[in-house]
């Protein structure tokens, strides 16, 4: 079966104002709204569009983390994923461990594509997709803004510093999504009801033969240093004089 694996990470919602705990042991997540990582939502949307074009048959959403991740998997199922796999663990999961766990699922599911968000908006690592492609020994097309599948190949437009780069990759491959790849659909109420009946499987990392290790330990968290507010100038002349004084214009 032509299958696409999609990553779904549970993160603090992007509208939440992030605050560092006063004791510096983390950021405040108690009572804070949690959501699907926006880049993963884009990944799922792209998978759905590929399926709707008849180029894939099944979409499997994968999340790694504590029990609460099932909320985000249900959202993914409501968006249109066919089934979900929850790798349940309370351990800290570094991108390297996430990639190893995803690889085990890939070996089991044999997908034509794995689509992941280019980064999660909590740790901002931007690593898991590339690591997964390396471990899998398959192509990677990161920061995708356009994906075209034809036969056993994909042509992917990537957002790079220089502009837009186009790569052709053999399938199976890993694609990571950039912001402008698509606009994810809204979930409708009947779909939320239907999603409750879709299969959601739970596995432990040990059952996949992976024991997550933490090799990069968090020592402390700090709020960012603030820039202090400067002066307001009354007109363009004053602005010009100030900038000229600093040799900037």
């Amino acid at each position: 079966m032509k299958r696409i694996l999609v990553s779904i990470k549970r993160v603090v919602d992007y509208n939440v104002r992030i605050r560092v705990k006063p004791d510096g042991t983390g950021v405040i997540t108690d009572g804070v709204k949690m959501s699907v990582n926006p880049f993963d939502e884009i990944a799922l949307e792209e998978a759905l569009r590929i399926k709707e074009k008849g180029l894939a048959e099944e979409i499997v959403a994968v999340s790694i983390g504590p029990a609460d991740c099932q909320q985000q998997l249900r959202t993914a199922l409501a968006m249109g994923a066919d089934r979900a796999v929850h790798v349940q663990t309370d351990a800290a999961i570094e991108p390297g461990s996430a990639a190893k766990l995803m690889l085990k699922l890939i070996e089991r599911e044999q997908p034509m594509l794995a689509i992941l968000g280019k980064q999660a908006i909590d740790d901002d690592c931007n690593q898991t997709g590339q690591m997964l492609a390396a471990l899998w020994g398959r192509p990677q097309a990161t920061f995708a803004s356009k994906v075209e599948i034809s036969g056993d190949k994909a042509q992917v437009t990537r957002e790079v510093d220089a502009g837009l780069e186009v790569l052709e990759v053999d399938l199976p491959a890993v694609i990571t999504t950039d912001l402008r790849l698509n606009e994810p659909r809204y979930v409708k109420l009947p779909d939320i009801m239907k999603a409750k009946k879709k299969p959601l499987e739970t596995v432990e990392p040990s059952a996949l033969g992976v024991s997550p290790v933490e090799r990069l330990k968090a020592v402390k968290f700090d709020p960012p240093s603030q820039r202090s507010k400067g002066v307001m100038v009354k007109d363009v002349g004053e602005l010009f004089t100030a900038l000229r004084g600093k040799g900037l214009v």
Partner: protein
Amino acid sequence: MSKILIVAEHQGGKLNAATAKCVHCASQISGAEIHIAVFASDPAAVAADAARLAGVSKVITVANPQHANPMAACIAPQLAELAQGYSHVFGPSTTFGKDLMPRVAALLDAPQASDIMAVESATRFRRPIYAGNAIITVEVTPGTQLVATVRTASFDAAQTSTSAAAIEGASPSATLPQHTRFVSVSAARSDRPDLQTAKKVVSGGRALASADNFKILYQLADRMGAAVGASRAAVDAGYAPNDMQVGQTGKIIAPELYMAFGISGAIQHLTGIKDARTIVAINKDPEAPIFEVADYGLVGDLFHVVPELEKLIASNG
């Protein structure tokens, strides 16, 4: 002792400034021995540039026609091979480095610290998380090889020195995969300075109201010798191309002068400019959050301010 391998980023036979910033970052690890690896179809000119960066003791070149257009899938296995015996492997936190380094880390089974902004020791680094709304200090277990990308906006470029380091050719045995093929790159070529490295940046937001109106910013930028940037709102509205986007999800820059015209100052934009030396904000809304971080703020209509400023610069040239 730390032994650090840095992968060079280059375009058109020239070393990218991002590489010199990685060298500066690496040199903050005390007593580090710093080597640079250059992957190119013809690495000679880039290697000569790299050899003159202060602190670099060796440059390793890998010449291969398949590296004419750098692809992570091709460079990674060779870089991983060269990286044996190094305590750290660094690359710039540009799209080149972000694409490549995790692939290298996975092949080495090493952890990666992304976007390092400060070096506390050979094993301890600071990096931004949550779009720069928090800074985490991370520590790698001593003796563990570490891969990292360097947040270029946080470091000055290493100086060039008069003496040059040794340049050695290498032929890694890793076979290059054929499953990934370069098709094209469409660079928005312009005569203006590169946004990532420009000393001055003039940037526009949604208030510009059309792609056509951006022309007034281009004129001002050309008068000043500045690069042109845009907010995500302006890019999403189609007023400016993607590669002009400044912010956490676009380019993170640290120019000497950043001028924001009609940009309200969403947190994701501010993350991209907070290392700028001087920030100037021009906005009609006196309550715009951008004024909270601006060194100079002016409440006014950008369609009057921009031409007036251009005229003042021209007449006082």
